[in-house]
């Protein structure tokens, strides 16, 4: 809500945005830099004088990856803080709040890129700021198809038994069939698995050329290490949450040669979009080297939302911001992420990704943004 301070003057008031952070919960390791990125961008934009005369206030709290906590926080944002949009986080809480944000007409940006959020009928207020997990998998399959030499490529899928893990699986299988890639095996590895020997040995029997991993860092590292131990030759390719700086120290040598889907830039990449980030960090006396990819991801997400506010005719209401967002066309993010477009009947901003390979203990991006 807003309190107009000066009639007709430049300052219009404050727009409140609610945010759900995971700092102390199960995904706190990635949730924290993501939250920092979001907060950083909002602070940055306010230091630039806000948007169209509006200041933006981010009310965000830790929900520890617990859905009931997310519910309670949402309740508070909606009725006491009277926020106009929400920056969310995980798959489950995004699902849990989907109907409510629809009823309350609040645009919702989550860090979970589930394909079913694309469904405009069921989730008309959810926006996807990066390629959905399914799109990521499709793009990877497309890349495999195009770069594989010698016969039909054989691919295995490794994921976990959660909404997050299973989200791209059916779509990947359908798409593989369509383009002529053979899915030879599926393995389930728990997010907290200590060991994946049995799954990998079973997978080995099918001798896949590639294995697509939909996991977080811990499980991905377990898989890579066990694969190395068992001498498995398969090329592992991880979707965006399997990829990131955090994987490298855990997996150690085993990460060499691993390919990851990159939806958001690494801080060490030299890209036009980094300028703003550097400027902000300099003003805080911090350095880009201390930040990681999840920070950039949070930054970009907040930036897209702010762009929607900028474009909105009525930036003070959720409905107004939604209309503003739907005007976004080919938003150039300076290479920090793929350009985003929203329309009234498409809230999936992009389907493009890049790929990076681990060489000498660092992710090296080796493609440009591409889709399927």
């Amino acid at each position, binding site marked *: 809500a807003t309190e107009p301070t000066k009639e007709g003057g430049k300052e219009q008031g404050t727009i409140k945005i609610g945010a759900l952070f995971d*700092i*102390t919960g199960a995904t706190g390791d990635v949730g924290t830099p993501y939250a920092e990125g979001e907060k950083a961008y909002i602070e940055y934009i306010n230091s630039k004088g806000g948007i169209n005369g509006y200041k933006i206030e981010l009310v965000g*709290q*830790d929900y520890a990856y*617990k*859905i*009931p*906590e997310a*519910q*309670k*926080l949402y*309740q*508070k944002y*909606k*009725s*006491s803080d009277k926020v106009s949009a929400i920056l969310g986080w995980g798959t*489950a809480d995004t*699902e*849990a709040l*989907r*109907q*409510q944000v629809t*009823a309350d007409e609040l645009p919702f940006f989550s860090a979970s890129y*589930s394909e*079913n959020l694309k469904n405009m009928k*069921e989730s008309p207020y959810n926006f996807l700021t990066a390629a959905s997990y399914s799109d990521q998998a499709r793009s990877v399959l497309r890349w495999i198809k195009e770069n594989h030499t010698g016969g039909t490529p054989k691919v295995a899928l490794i994921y976990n*038994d*959660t*909404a997050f*893990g*299973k*989200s791209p699986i059916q779509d990947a299988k359908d798409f593989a069939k369509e383009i002529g890639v053979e899915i030879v095996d599926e393995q389930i590895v728990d997010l907290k698995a200590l060991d994946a020997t049995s799954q990998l040995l079973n997978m080995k029997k099918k001798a896949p050329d590639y294995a697509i991993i939909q996991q977080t860092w811990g499980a991905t590292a377990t898989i890579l290490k066990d694969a190395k131990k068992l001498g498995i030759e398969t090329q592992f390719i991880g979707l965006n949450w399997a990829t990131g700086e955090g994987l490298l120290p855990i997996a150690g040598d085993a990460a060499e040669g691993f390919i990851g889907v990159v939806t958001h830039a690494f801080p060490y990449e030299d890209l036009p979009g980094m300028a703003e980030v550097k400027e902000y960090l300099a003003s805080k006396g911090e350095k880009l080297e201390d930040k990681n990819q999840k920070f950039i991801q949070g930054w970009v997400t907040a930036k897209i939302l702010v762009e929607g506010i900028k474009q909105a005719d009525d930036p003070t209401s959720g409905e107004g911001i939604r209309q503003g967002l739907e005007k976004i066309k080919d938003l150039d993010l300076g290479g920090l992420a793929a350009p985003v477009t929203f329309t009234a009947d498409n809230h999936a901003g992009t389907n493009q990704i890049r790929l990076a390979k681990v060489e000498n203990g660092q992710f090296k991006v080796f493609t440009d943004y591409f889709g399927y």
Partner: protein
Amino acid sequence: MRNPFVMQCGEFHVDYKQDMTIWKIARVRWRIVTIVALFALFPMVATDCVVGLATLCGIAAIGAIGLNILTGFTGQISIGVGAFLGVGGYTSAILTTKLGISFWIAFPLAGLITALVGALFGIPSLRLKGLYLAIATLAAQVIILFVISRWDSLTGGTAGLVLSRPQIGSFTFMSETSYYYLMFVVLLITIVFSLNLFRTRVGRAFIAVRDRDIAAEVMGIDLFKYKVLAFFVSSFFVGIAGALLGHYTMIVSPELYSISVSIEYLAMILVGGLGSVFGSLYGAVFITLMPVVLRSVVDVLSGTFPGLEAVLIGMKEVVFGVVIILFLVYEPDGLNKIWSNIKNYFRLWPFSYTK
């Protein structure tokens, strides 16, 4: 004329029926009516946010009373409440969304089906006791969640199901206040039912099974039957709470019913007081609100000390734990005992002891 300022000092009952009412003294009865009325009127003055929290507290209280029937009154520790909440939520979700049955029928059915599932997983109580039984309920938790996340065609798998708020005619319980009243009625019924239960035959048998099972058996109580019955009754209320919660949040998904939910409920009845209906209520409110309160404190403080946010978030957990421990140290029998100690103190005042 009776002095209006003093509490009636004794019980003057002329028949057993009177002696056996729950609240024996007229003034106490009036007080109860007043309290109920206050709670009924409270949404009129409170904000949506507060009413919403109250609704969550109330739903948790129903579940906690259910768990207390099993754990507090019958002495069978369960760490599977989370999954039973899920069974309730899913039953109602499947019945209303997939089969198009009205909420008003699906709701009690959710309780009933959860009760049956509960009874099924209560069968190990034939042989198991204490922590060993607790692990069997943990197994129930794992198995139920596995089934839910695998039976895609019925449960929507890991993505869960979306459900809607109940309706009467054209009225939908969409607003916070209306759902609060729905919860409130169910909660009242739950409380009265369980208070009654534990002053009659079956409730007494539950307590007997908890305190001395061998003696109970020799008194003619069929241990197995009553243990499973306790699972049944307990799960019924947990299922009801699950359904209420499902329709309130409008989603059911496996991640909502994890083991940490089970532990949270256990915490409610332990903090509130094992084997106490009102204790469950206090515990549910306490455990539900405590994080909210702490979070707002953190919010205020981190405004004042911006650099310390990370520390404050950690402190939130520390304080939460410390408060629980302090409660237990100060009164291991829970909030309910604290409350009755306060009452006793004033009852005896100015004398400090009896006998």
